[in-house]
């Protein structure tokens, strides 16, 4: 029971990394499948396809960043498993949820938008910039939740309760 706060905090870090990573992996895979279809027919479009494929991968990165920051802040990476109160542990778990949940769903949504954009690259390559912009719009919400998660983690670890 003494380390339960730390367990909750690590659970938060794990959720942020796992859910965001899972969403990005599925989305990048989806766009990759669609991209492979275009490359099969026209390999010269690889560059445009690659940009669209990279887009939904950022959520996984955000999840990793959140988890890394949290693990640094609670000194797990340095091997110091000092006690965290259960309240603080739960607060840190809650702080990780925005990027974990929104990261997962926004990655899937962005993957779908990017895969649809692959169709634009296939038929109207000169318009691919527009499809990239449309897919990138989804990123906004992942970035907003990343900010919330990061700010919360920083503040919670700094204050004592």
């Amino acid at each position, binding site marked *: 029971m003494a380390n339960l706060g730390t367990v909750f905090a690590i659970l938060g870090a794990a959720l942020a990394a796992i859910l965001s990573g899972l969403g990005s992996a599925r989305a990048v895979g989806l766009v990759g*499948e669609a991209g492979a*279809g275009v490359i099969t*027919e026209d390999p010269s479009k690889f560059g445009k396809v690659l940009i669209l494929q990279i887009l939904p991968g950022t959520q996984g990165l955000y999840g990793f960043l959140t988890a890394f920051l949290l693990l640094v802040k609670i000194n797990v990476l340095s091997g110091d498993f000092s006690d965290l109160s259960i309240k603080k542990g739960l607060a840190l778990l809650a702080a990780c949820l925005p990027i974990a949940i929104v990261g997962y769903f926004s990655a899937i949504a962005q993957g*779908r938008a990017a895969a649809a954009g692959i169709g634009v690259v*296939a*038929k109207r390559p000169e318009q691919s910039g527009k499809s990239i912009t449309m897919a990138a719009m989804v990123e906004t919400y992942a970035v907003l939740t990343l900010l919330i998660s990061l700010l919360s983690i920083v503040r919670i670890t700094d204050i004592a309760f």
Partner: protein
Amino acid sequence: MNELHFAYAVARIRCNELNLLTSADFEQLISAPDYPSAVAFLNDKGWELDEKSESNAAAFRRKRDEAWELIQSSLEDVTILNSIIVFNDFHNLKAALKCKFTGGDAKKYMMQPCVFNAEALLDAVETHRFDLLPAFLQESAQEAYDMLVQTGNGQRADCLLDCAALRTAVDMAKKSESAMLLTLAQTLADCADAKTAYRCFRTGKDEKFMEQAVSGSGKLDKEALCAAARSGAEELAQVLDAAGYPRLAKGILTDSVTFEKECDDALLAIYIQAKHSAFGVEPVAAYYLACESQVKNVRIILSGKLNRLPQQEIERRVRNLYV
């Protein structure tokens, strides 16, 4: 099959849609001064037609085969598209049965793609082993065979198999769980039934024949359609209008050319919705149907050029385009 596989297939289809003839191409083709010029134009687009041939059946078949090969290489399991190719199985069955009685070479009439291997179908019919056929063909094959033996009436056997094909297509579309494929199969059945009823009306066929020739597997009320066909074109138009086909109703009152075109355009109106879908089997099915429609349009135009039809007459016959 999951969404990922369709994403790959749809992307490949989108690339290949660029190779379909556009409305500008068709305008140019229609305005070609004569048949050789039209053939030359198509050959510039890679159609490999023979200027001296009047049918160019092999080239048209090659175009269809190319489209199907693309689909086969893009989808892991093509059985989801059975509802749109099963008509070829019934065509093959018709050819095999007729050739069995007339002694003709059925191989040259076989059509691809089909659900059941055409050669195996031919063997089954030749050896009278209908049990070797898939379930959806067995009963119809036996009934058509018995009809040919007992009456020698090829037209009735054709009607029986046509109805069975439409029913099978609707059943297969239901199994595909694609709303578009189901609507397409039902509309196709309705159009086929409407065409049959119209022809029965024009040729004065009796009630018994109509009962056998109209499948009733779509959304149209079979009894109402048959009753209307006995009365006249206006009554047929009313039935079609009431069933939600106002353009078909208008077409049937104009002439047979317009009616046939409206039937094809009604189908296009369904599968053209897949043009903007990024996922699902629908864009793949739509591409195959668009290729078939393209071949039909090219045939209409070339046939018009061969017969020196005026440009307006050809335009009136050309179907709407997918691209």
